[in-house]
């Protein structure tokens, strides 16, 4: 009880229906999203990361079209350009770098490395993207239910999270690889050599192991949102459960979901590379950054360019995605200091 509160008796208010204290900040209809966008634009590093990521995505989308129109040739062999005496290493410096083959050639087959990398980005991105979507959707839905329901539902989902997190993920992926791929090959139409069963297997397992962290984070967010009075206000109006979930709570979760998405994407891009290195996922001749790297490691001395360019590409992609994720996180949460 402070001194000032007593002043209430002395202050004389204006009558009803008269517009008062009409000083509104900003221009009309500035949604929180638009404000965040403004903050993001001012952050130079994030903008650079955004441009790189956008470039990468556009390139990945274009690749299949370029292959179709014969602009890039990820499977065309060039045996004449290889040095048979050195075990199939390309002739010339940096793995056979020429104006025709800007990043040189792949040893043993002589395919154009730029073409393979470019086309490989498409597969890597597709795998990372779908796995992220799987993880985000499962994680967000379970997180909302868990955080909002509490009680037994919360406890059950919490145990599911614990169990999933304690599974040796990579080991599982490796151990179940053969059976899993065979299974999907049977279920899905298409030939055995098709990359589809491999891709589906990889996506599902990555996604199924990726959701717990997201579910946990979303649950925490929901717990704090649930305590805010606007949820009570909606309840008090008799809002249905689905209205509470999807109209009141979910719009407040876009920020963390988006941030999680931009953080899990690079994780999955590098996971694809790592798994490719271990021989899980899509196999040659279909290129992915992972299986190119796996092959290139054998040549790290004999043909350094073949190893260097894929590794550099992977590093740039992962770093840019991470920077983008951080930038988005900062822009969406104005209170976080930078």
């Amino acid at each position, binding site marked *: *009880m402070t001194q000032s509160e007593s002043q209430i008796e002395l202050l004389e208010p204006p009558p009803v229906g008269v*517009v008062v204290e009409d000083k509104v900040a900003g221009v009309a*209809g500035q949604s*929180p999203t638009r404000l965040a966008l403004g903050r993001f634009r001012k952050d130079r590093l994030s903008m650079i990361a955004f441009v790189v990521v956008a470039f990468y995505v556009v390139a990945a989308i274009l690749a299949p079209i370029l292959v179709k129109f014969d602009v890039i040739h990820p499977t065309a062999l060039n045996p004449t350009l290889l040095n048979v005496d050195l075990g199939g290493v390309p002739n010339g410096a940096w793995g056979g770098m020429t104006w025709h083959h800007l990043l040189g050639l792949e040893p043993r087959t002589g395919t154009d490395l730029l073409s393979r990398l470019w086309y490989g980005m498409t597969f890597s991105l597709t795998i990372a993207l779908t796995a992220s979507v799987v993880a985000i959707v499962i994680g967000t839905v379970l997180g909302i239910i868990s955080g909002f329901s509490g009680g037994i539902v919360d406890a059950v989902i919490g145990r599911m999270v614990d169990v999933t997190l304690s599974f040796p993920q990579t080991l599982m992926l490796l151990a179940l690889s053969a059976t899993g791929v065979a299974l999907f090959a049977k279920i899905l139409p298409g030939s055995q050599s098709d990359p589809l069963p491999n891709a589906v297997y990889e996506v599902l397992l990555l996604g199924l192991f990726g959701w717990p962290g997201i579910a946990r984070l979303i649950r925490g967010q929901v717990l704090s949102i649930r305590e805010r009075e606007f949820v009570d*206000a909606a309840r*008090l109006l*008799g809002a249905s459960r689905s209205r509470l979930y999807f109209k009141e709570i979910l719009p407040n979760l876009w920020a963390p979901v988006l941030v999680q998405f931009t953080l899990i994407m690079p994780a999955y891009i590098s996971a694809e590379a790592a798994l490719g290195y271990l021989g899980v996922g899509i196999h040659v001749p279909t290129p992915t950054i992972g299986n190119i790297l796996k092959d290139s490691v054998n040549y790290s001395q004999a043909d350094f360019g073949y190893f260097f360019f894929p590794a550099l590409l992977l590093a740039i992609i992962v770093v840019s995605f991470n920077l983008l994720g951080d930038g988005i996180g900062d822009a969406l949460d104005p209170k976080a200091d930078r």
Partner: protein
Amino acid sequence: MSISPSESHASEAPAEPKGGVVLGNPASKLDLSRPPILEVDNLQMYFPVRNSGLIRRTVGYVQAVDGVSFQVPAGGSLGLVGESGCGKSTTGRLITRLYKPTAGRIDFDGRNIANYSASQLMPLRREIQMIFQDPATSLNPRHTVGAIVGAPLLIHKVIPKKQVLNRVQELLEVVGLNPEHYNRYPHEFSGGQRQRIGIARALTLQPKLLVADEPVSALDVSIQAQVINLLQDLQREFDIAFLFIAHDLAIVRHFCPEIAVMYLGKIVEISDRETLYNRPNHPYTQALLSAVPDVKQAAIGGRRERIRLEGDVPSPVNPPSGCRFRTRCPIAKEICAKVEPPLLQIGKRHKVACHFAGELGNHPTAPITAGMLGVDDQGNHDPGASPSKDIGNSPGFSDFWFDLKTRTMAKS
């Protein structure tokens, strides 16, 4: 009853000068002719306390509200005052049925809604609404003002979708906001404006009862008066009954002709405004009141000295035995730890729960309640005494009361 800004302008606005010094509304008066729209009887809310182990057993209860009874007259207002954590919000949330009470009766308009199911409550949602304490969290930051104020109309399908915007704009005007701002977001408004948005939302369904949970505590002092005045105007215009929650007595004074003071889940004193402010009988009310600098008393030089309460409010998980206020009461005696004082009616519209009820500096030396409770002055069981049944704790006031001066029953 219809919410229409043109009416409000016709009846109110032109009558009063715009700008400059506008005289405040007269204080709300008690209208005894109206029947209660809300009667709460022995309301209880115990929140279970669970341990944090693997198997979560209930290890105790937060006795947030413990046997509260009161009435709110139709179109009138009752103030509910007490320190932080005494159970005011919980009481409000029980009445709006955000919580289901552990025990007790909530009679709204003649129906006991204490155990209503969600579907039974649905039509009632239109009649009981709430204004929340913190305008920063009570509005969804991702919704426009139009969506917030229009939500009740959509949920209850009261009017066709096409007319929602119109109605929203009317409501914004009623609460003193620019109707053209319907597509702005809450963060674009000041605290006072946000609270007006919350008020508009509560008004949308034209409720009969509004629970205002500290509606101005989060606001600037200069804006508090404006908002209170708005509420008062709305109350008159739309005949809305208010349960007005506040944590100090200064805020409710103007608004509420009747006031209940709560301490640790119980009502310790309830009475009409004049009695409560001029002749409080409970030591706790006296302490609260001593913290309110009184303009009139200052003028006549009779300013009371501030009574400082020692210590903290005890935990509602483990409230003190006997009188819950005894750990901080300046006049507590032996009996206070042993026997709980009943909420005894000591005047026409005045009840107090204290063994030594009396005006400040004039507390009796012997407990006034010992006889009727069947104990001696130290609170030990007295085999010779004949305790009277059902003293206190029914809602409303009786025609008979215990007169403190004569120590006999009196009648109006």
